[in-house]
């Protein structure tokens, strides 16, 4: 599902956060931001975070969780009900949007259709009263850097989706903002272009060295591009960490389910030992698992169990393995997608469906529907999270 190789490179590249650093090493800091709308609805609930200079920070959350509201407060279009926003150590909570050293790439880009590409980019410079000849040079320079040196005289309507994207980013970056805010800028693009732009955005960010705050509901975008990801739900930050952290050490059931793909079961703890937990799923399956981060259980507690598709080993036909969890299933469907192919299997005992990553070996090429497969996975890869109620 996710491109795991790029996650690993991201982790290596990630600047280690120095806890002794002063407040001005953070490009952006939020303290206890709260936003309550007129109707009494709390869209952003007590959010605090710090973003080190030059990093790519993503806010990941489902639709309606308050991402745009948070970003609009950072840009200055919305005033927090309480809390403070600092940019490079300076409070900007009461600074209007046109005076803040941040710029925003809008969801639908908002390139001015009445201006050419060059005029669009020059707009911000003109507002700053930059000298005419310098404007020309800087526009040329930034067009070069985003790889569109010849499109200065084009109209916005003449650009392709990906080109518009780059111009919208160039229009902000030409102003050298301390922080660039991006509101799901890839949402309007088709899948293929989105995959491509993910990599390009990351490269642009590294090239310019500007701090990016990127909001998205697409976990793969967040995982591929970010140094740090904050997972947001119902207006609050649930967990913040590197993509690697979130993927392998989710803090609760929401993060475990939202970041990456998982097979889920609902069940109850039947016994606990030093080797882990014994769980019985609602469908009657007995599993061996471990408790997720910072969780502790009593026997009989209701839990949600997560197993990643790529954690499951497969053997064709009847087979034995050393793994503690074993399940014999029949193939329901093969979802072929090249290297990301998956197999959908059904467990006859509980009638539940399980998704498994297809091993990239010749053995599984001619898999047929209905065939018997032996699934197995370890105790460590079976994570249990508490479910309230």
């Amino acid at each position: 599902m996710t491109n795991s190789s790029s996650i690993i490179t991201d982790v290596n590249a990630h600047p280690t956060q120095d806890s002794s650093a002063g407040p001005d090493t953070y490009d952006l800091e939020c303290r206890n931001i709260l936003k309550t709308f007129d109707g009494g609805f709390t869209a952003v609930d007590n959010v605090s975070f710090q973003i080190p200079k030059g990093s790519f920070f993503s806010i990941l959350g489902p639709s309606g969780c308050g991402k745009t509201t948070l970003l609009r407060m950072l840009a200055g279009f919305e005033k927090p009900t309480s809390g403070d926003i600092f940019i490079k150590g300076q409070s900007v909570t009461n600074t209007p949007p046109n005076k803040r050293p941040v710029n925003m790439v809008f969801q639908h880009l908002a390139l001015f259709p009445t201006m050419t590409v060059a005029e669009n980019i020059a707009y911000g410079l003109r507002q700053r009263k930059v000298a005419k000849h310098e404007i020309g040079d800087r526009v040329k320079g930034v067009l070069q850097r985003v790889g569109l040196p010849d499109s200065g005289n084009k109209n916005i309507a003449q650009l392709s989706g990906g080109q518009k994207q780059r111009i919208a980013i160039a229009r902000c970056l030409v102003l050298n903002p301390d922080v660039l805010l991006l509101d799901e800028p890839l949402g309007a693009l088709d899948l293929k272009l989105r995959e491509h732009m993910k990599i390009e955005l990351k490269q642009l960010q590294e090239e310019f060295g500007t701090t990016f705050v990127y909001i998205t509901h697409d976990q793969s975008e967040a995982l591929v591009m970010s140094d740090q990801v904050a997972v947001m739900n119902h207006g609050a930050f649930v967990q913040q960490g590197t993509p690697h952290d979130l993927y392998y050490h989710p803090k609760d059931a929401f993060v475990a389910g939202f970041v990456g793909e998982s097979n889920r079961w609902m069940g109850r703890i039947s016994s606990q030992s030093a080797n882990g937990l014994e769980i019985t799923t609602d469908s009657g399956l007995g599993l061996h698992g471990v408790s997720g981060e910072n969780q502790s259980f009593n026997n009989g507690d209701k839990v949600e169990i997560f197993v990643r598709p790529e954690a499951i080993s497969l053997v064709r036909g009847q087979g034995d393995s050393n793994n503690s969890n074993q399940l014999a299933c029949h193939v329901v469907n093969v979802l072929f997608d090249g290297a990301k192919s998956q197999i959908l299997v059904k467990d006859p005992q509980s009638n539940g469906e399980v998704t498994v990553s297809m091993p990239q070996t010749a053995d599984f090429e001619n898999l047929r529907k209905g065939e018997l497969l032996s699934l197995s996975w370890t105790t460590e890869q079976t994570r249990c999270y508490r479910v309230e109620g």
Partner: protein
Amino acid sequence: MSLRTPKLRLGLLLLLTPMLLWLLLLIILPHVNMAIISLSERVSAGEYAFSLSNYAEFFTESLYWNTFLRTATMSILVTFLTLIIAFPVSYYIAKMLRGRTKGLVFALCLIPFWVSELVRTYGWMILLRETGVVSSSLQWLGLTDGPIEFLYNDAAIIVGLVYTSMLFMVVPLTTTLDSLDDSYIEAGYDLGGNGFTVMREVVIPHAMPGIVSGCIVVFMLTLGNYLTPALLGGKDSLWFTEQIFTQFITRFNWEQGSAFGILLLFLSSFIVWLGLKLSRQSFTRVMS
């Protein structure tokens, strides 16, 4: 499918026929007729000859010429005033109001136009005449000693015309401003613009087609208006349409009246063309 398929061409023709008929019967035919009449001169009873004298009359008789200039300048002034008043109103309706209030306020702007122009103008007369509401309130407040006549001058005509034209400016402006997504305005601020520059560089360029089409309609309607100047204007407040009326109805000089009608058409078209050139807009774009 291309337009060349016979079936489609027939369909297009059928669709366009009523339109073309309407144009031909109500616009082109009377104008051709008027043009012919305007180019003739009565030699003796029942006998007419070709002549340009009706047109020469317009350019040589300073009254006609001046009345036209006056009408044109005042129409331009009215158009400009209407735009200045209608723009903030439209901006408020399109960009500041939301949901139900928006529809309500917009409807409120339309309601006066359910009443006929005659009644609306009469409304202004009740307000502005010597014994009217404005004059009596001023006296009641002790701001003046005697009654004041606000009617029968150029200012009264302009007030009446601006009021009559309001709708034709507010509707196209609100429509174009409504189509401007808020994110463009926000982007304008985000990139460092202030209220004035965002208005000048983002909002007005976007609203330009609406502004120009509103101005054309208001200018043409004002120039061709008869009722308001006739009722609110004084003896000296001549309007060009009144000249045409006089020629046709009072003097029975159809030749002269036709010549004035044709001249009004061409001169107003010329002014609109000039306006389009100056604002760098194309007619087809503005009207689309």
